[in-house]
Structure formats: C-alpha cells, structure tokens
C-alpha cells in the first residue's frame, strides 16, 4: 500500500502544474460553497437576531398559560432563587422584565385600545434599542410617572409631548386601573401596526397602575449565542417553579421559524445549483486530466502494470488532490469569512434607507460557524471523489498501443 501511495505522490509532483490546477478547482469549489452557506445561514441568523430583539427575545419566563390567555391571572412574583439563577447564568446576556396589558387610552374625545407595556427602561433599551426610536421628548427611566407612545398613536389621539392621557384598563384580580399620565416621549416604529399602537410606562409605574406590586407578566432573556438557547432553556426549566414556563422564540413565534425554513428551502435550491456548477467544474478538470494522460496510462499498461493497480494509484492521486484542494480551500475561505463576519459588507442606496427606516443595520451578514466548514467540505469532497471516478472507467477502456501512438486510444 505504501508503495502505491509513494507512486501516486510522485506522479502528482511530476506534473505540478496539473496537480495545482486540479486541486485549485476543488479549492474554489470549497471556497464558494463555504461562502454561500455562511452567507445564507448568516442572513437567517440575522433575521432571528433582529426579530427576537424586536420583541420576544430568545427566551421568556412566563406564568403557565400566559402566552395564550394574556391575563394578569398568570402573572408571577419572581423569587430570589429564580433571579439568582438567571443573573448568574453565564450565557444569559440580558434580563428584561415586563408587565404587559391592554387598556384604553383616551384624550378628550379620542379613545384607542392599545397594548401597554411596563418596561425596565434600561434593559428594554439594551435589548430592543427602544431609545434609538425616540423622536420627541425624553426616554423613560425607572422613576418616570409618565407614558411614552408610538408616533402614529400620538397622531391619532392628536396629542404631543406634555399632554395628559387617561389610561383605563383592568388591573390584577379585576381591579380598575385608571390614571392620568403625561406623555414624556414619542417613539417611531417602522411597522405601522406598532407605530399606531405601542405605549410604554416604567415598570414601577405599571405595577402601581395595574395594582400588581412585585409581580411580572414575563421576563425576557437574551443569550450570548443562539446555539446555546436550547440548553439554557433546559437549565432554567429544570429549576423552575411548576407554575412557570420558559418558552423560546420558536415556540412563541412559529411563523418566524417557518418563514426561515421557507427561506432556507429556496436557499438550499440555490446551493444545489451551485453544487451542480461546481461538480461540472471539477468534472471538466478531471476529464481533461484523464485525456491528457492517455498516453502515459497506455505506456504504463504496455510496460506491464496491472490495470487494477493503475486504478488504485489514480484513485489515491484523486484523493490526495481532493484533500489538498479541500484543506487549502478551508484555509483560504477562513480569513475571508472571518473578516466579513466581523466586518460585514454594508448595503447602499435605497435598500439601505429602507433597512435603516426599519431600524435594521443595512448589512450583509455572514456566519462564522465550524459546522458549516465540516458539512460543506464533506459535500464538496464527495462531489470531487464521485467525479474523479471517471478516470477509472477511462483506464479500463485504454488500448495501450493506440494510446501510445496518440490516436485517442480509448475503446
């Protein structure tokens, strides 16, 4: 075996240019496959990241049944052990407590029914970047007694910063929740449904307003890496009070999961097309190599080399070339993917404006993920190995004499 390997190795070095060419076709195949998949998965990740940081977060701790009923009956008092569990969890980056309800907001003759969210102003900003959306007035803080509303809602109610709104709703255990709140700030959301509806008050204010002292409807959690989400969820779930649940964004917004899967389906179609093109590139190179070596093969067979051994040597050659191409491809792609994952390309023009209006960074995100390297390299390697089976058929059909004479020489 060692003999064949040495033979193959020497063959490869005998014609460096050909070897380099063959390896380079695999090199580029790997580079492209890696870049495409990193780009695809990067964009799904970006979609998830931006969507979850808009509202749901990666994980939420809620009372059992809250997600369906949205009632204060399922609110909860966070225990010290729960708080210390999430505060000391190494992979949880943001802990964002909320009180959510729906209430009437009224100014003079205009009345609207809107969702009101009691927020920890600092945490909410850290997670959703709410402060960036402020267009008028001041952002809330813990001691704020006022309210912050969406721009569209302000227009509909014909109000401005400094005006007083009446809030009327239902608090914990059915008590009346009513108060007059001064508008402290106005925020703008790119999505009309949010812009026309959202209203925020500081968490302590929400607790008095809804008579829900020390209780929360949800704790929103952001994690350092989406891949850790499920294990963190299990961690928390194992130690959670039986009245509480911890939900992940996939459970809260299945539409988003499915949307990403759908996008991923079309992404896979594109990837398949790329594989076909890559496959043909590699195949062309391999075929050319075989044709070029007709005379050499013919000579070897004429000199008494068994076809079987020749097949073995060629196969070893193909494997070595593929491996060289694959490894160099990975090495070549890594810095590029690394660079663009850290310094993503910025979109320009109208699309960039649209991105910004939506509060999104106008970037083309790239994902740096070892798993992509492994899977894509394996896929391209198998394509390379399958295509390099061609010379095997070729060798079996060589007629030594005419091959040496350079008359095609294939049966």
């Amino acid at each position, binding site marked *: 075996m060692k003999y064949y390997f040495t033979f193959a190795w020497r063959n490869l070095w005998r014609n460096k240019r050909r070897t380099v060419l063959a390896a380079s076709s695999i090199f580029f195949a790997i580079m492209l496959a890696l870049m495409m998949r990193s780009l695809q998965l990067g964009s799904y990740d970006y979609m998830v990241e931006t969507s979850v940081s808009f509202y749901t977060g990666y994980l939420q701790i809620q009372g059992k049944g809250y997600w369906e009923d949205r009632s204060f009956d399922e609110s909860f008092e966070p225990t010290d052990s729960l708080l210390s569990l999430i505060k000391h969890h190494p992979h949880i980056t943001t802990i964002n407590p909320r009180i959510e309800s729906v209430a009437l907001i009224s100014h003079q003759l205009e009345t609207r029914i809107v969702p009101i969210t009691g927020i920890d102003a600092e945490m909410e900003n850290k997670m959703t970047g709410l402060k960036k959306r402020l267009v008028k007035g001041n952002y809330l803080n813990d001691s704020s007694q006022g309210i912050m509303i969406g721009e569209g809602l302000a227009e509909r109610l014909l109000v401005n910063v400094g005006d007083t709104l009446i809030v009327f709703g239902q608090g914990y255990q059915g008590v009346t929740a009513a108060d007059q709140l001064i508008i402290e700030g106005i925020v703008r959301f790119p999505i009309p449904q949010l812009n026309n509806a959202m209203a925020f008050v500081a968490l302590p204010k929400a607790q008095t307003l809804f008579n829900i002292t020390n209780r929360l409807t949800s704790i929103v959690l952001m994690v350092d890496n989406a891949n850790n989400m499920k294990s963190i969820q299990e961690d928390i779930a194992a130690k959670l009070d039986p009245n509480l649940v911890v939900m992940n964004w996939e459970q809260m917004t299945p539409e988003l999961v499915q949307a990403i899967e759908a996008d991923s389906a079309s992404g896979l179609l594109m990837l398949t*097309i790329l594989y076909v093109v890559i496959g043909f590139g590699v195949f062309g190179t391999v075929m050319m190599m075989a*044709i070029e070596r007709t005379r050499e093969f013919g000579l070897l067979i004429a000199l008494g080399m068994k076809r079987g051994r020749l097949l073995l040597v060629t196969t070893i050659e193909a494997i070595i070339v593929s491996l060289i191409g694959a490894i160099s491809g990975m090495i070549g792609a890594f810095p590029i993917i690394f660079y663009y994952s850290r310094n993503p390309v910025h979109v320009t023009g109208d699309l960039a404006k649209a991105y910004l209006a939506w509060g999104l960074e106008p970037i083309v995100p790239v994902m740096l993920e070892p798993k992509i390297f492994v899977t894509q390299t394996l896929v391209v390697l198998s394509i390379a190995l399958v295509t390099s089976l061609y010379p095997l058929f070729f060798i079996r059909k060589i007629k030594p004499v005419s091959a040496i004479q350079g008359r095609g020489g294939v049966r």
Partner: protein
Amino acid sequence: MMMLIFAWKNIWRNKKRSFIILAATAIGLAAGIFSVGLMTGMYDSMVDSAINRGLGNIQLHTTAYKRDQLIRQYLPNIDSVVQVIKKYPDVKSYTTHSIIEGMASSATIASGVSIVAIDPELEKSVTAVSKSIVEGTYLEKPNSIIIGKKLADKLKIKLRSRVVLSFAGMDGNIIYAAFRVAGIFKTDASLFDGMNVFILQNDLSTLLGTQAPIHEIILRTHNSLLLEQTKNELQHQLPSSILVESWRDISPDMKLTADITDLTNMIFLGMILFALLFGLTNTLMMSVLDRVRDFGVLLAVGMYRRRLFSMIILESLFLSFTGGIVGVLIGWGLVQYFKTQGIDLSVVSKGLSAYGIPSMLYPYIRSNVYGELTVMMIATSIIAAMYPAIKAVRLKPVDAIRTIA
C-alpha cells in the same frame, strides 16, 4: 476570417475536450437561467399572492378612514368615483368594500374581526377570495358569511354553523346579526384568514337600514410598469379627500422583504457565475496544457503570439456560444417544465404560508433575461479564456515541443 475557420476547425479536432467545455458552459447557463427563474418566481408569487388576496394594485380610501377606520368615514359620491375609475384605460377591474371592525361570536368564544361586505361579482374580478374557498361555496344566499379556516378553528365552528356578528352601526348603536357559514376559505396568509370575514353588501344594507357605505375601492390594473402613473393620474382626477395608493405604499414591509430576498439572490447568482468562471478557466487551462506541443509547433513555424492569443479566445467564444445556445435551451426547458409543474416546497409549507408565499414555487423568467444572461455568459467565458490564453502565448516553442504529454 482565416482565424475564424482555424479556430472553428480546432474545436472539432478534439471532440471530447470541446464537448466537456461546451457541456460546462451549457450547464452553467442553464443553472443560471433556472436560478433567476426561481428568484423571479419567488418574488412574483409573494407579491402576486398578496395582490390577489386583497391588496390589489391600487387602493382608494378617504384620508380620514386611513387614520381612524370609522364606519362613517366612507367614500363620498361613490357613483362618480366609480365612473372615473371605469373610464381610466389602465384599470382592468375594480371592487368595492364596506369594512367594519366588529366581533364574530360563536357560543363558545368571540373574536375581533374585520367585516368586509362585498359585491360578489365585482370581487371575483379583483381578489382571489372566491378561489380560496376550501369548504362549502362562495357567497350566494342572503345572510351567508365566508370565514377563514383559522378563525373557524378559533370559534370552533363548521360549515353551516351560526355566527353572530356585532358591530356599531352608523349611529353608534350596536347591531347583532346571525349569519350562516356558507364557505370556509384558506389563503397563503394565516393572519389574513384569522382576521377577515366576508358578507354580502346587500345584507349589510338591510342591517344598517341604508345603502352599505363603501370604505375602500380596490383596483387591478393592466400594466404594472404604469402603476405609479396610473396612481398619480387617478389621484389627480379624484377629490383630494380621497387617497389613492399603490400596493407598494400600503405594504412597505412586503416591499422590504422582497427587496432583501432579491439582494441575497443576486449575491447567490453572482457566486454561481463565479463558480462557473472557475470551472471554465480550469477546463480551458487543461485544454491548453494538453495542447502545449501543438502550440509549440505553431509558434516554431512562425505563428504570431497575438494571433495564437486571439485564436484561443475565439475558440473559447465559439465553444461558449454553442454551449450557450444549448444552455438557454435546457434552461428554458426547465423553466417551462416547472412553470406548469411547479416545485413543491410543501415540506415547509406552513412557514411559506405564514410568510405569504404559496407552497408551490413556479419559476418564471422575463424574456429579456435570456439575452442578458447569454451576454453575461459570453463575457464570463472570455474572461475565463484569458488566463489560459496568456499562458499559451508565453510558451517557449522549444520547451513546449519537447514536453512529453
């Protein structure tokens, strides 16, 4: 001329080699065409599905209704508005909607809904509601209602069940009325299915005791390229209290999603072309190496290097052109086949549905794309041939002839 013939003959001297290059080009182009077809198909179906569902090409409301959605903010002088619309040449069809926010209740539960009162004949020409019925029939008999599958499940009701609609009438008093479920519809967007119920305008008129107020007119136009112009001219002809908007104005989020999809797809297409470029370069390079001896001889007998260079480029051009024609044919065939057959993405159909994309994907290509891609393809093959051609002309004749294959 001489060069042309020479190059053409060269191509057929080694049929196998030429065939490989030809096939690579053909496959590349076919793949390119097919991916563009998929992209366009995806974009179009997303937009079309929303337009069909109820977005239309152009919508008319009063500015007040756009702000408050109140029942009394209906379109004034509806007949003269309809006259203006009917006369405008680019308008294909129109439909009128009375839209009232209200509640639909079953014995178990009540849910907030948009009650859309329609003229069933006009509606057919504009939206796909009549085609989306999965159970039962379209609106035919009085006091019938069609509701979305999602809402039907929420209210726990079936075909022919009783549903009570309640809404504030023109004077603010709440009206309660019972309807029978005539049909259940299911569109690509589950949110739409959970929010909208359809009844007859005649029934609404009876309940209100006055002609049903029209809050919305939806138009389909003939030419999507003239959309902005049509919009502006209609706005000009109608009173300023009426707001004329195109689907792009109404649904900016869909436009953004579509644009992002478009951008990522363009990047992928670029990568596919790039992959093709390298495949071709490699194949051509091999073919040049294979012919080192020939080139050596040619140079030795006094052929100009410049001529050799153009010969290789010409060869590559011929190959890519022939391959291009084959590729266009294959690509066209694929697109045509799947255009009728469709590609089933139903594994993830639930997700597509939430997104507003139908689960069957029908690739589609505008005819000018074939030309554009062929030009791109030829440019790619010229670029691909550059490096091998440069390599070839740099050969030293003596070394080249000595080279054993």
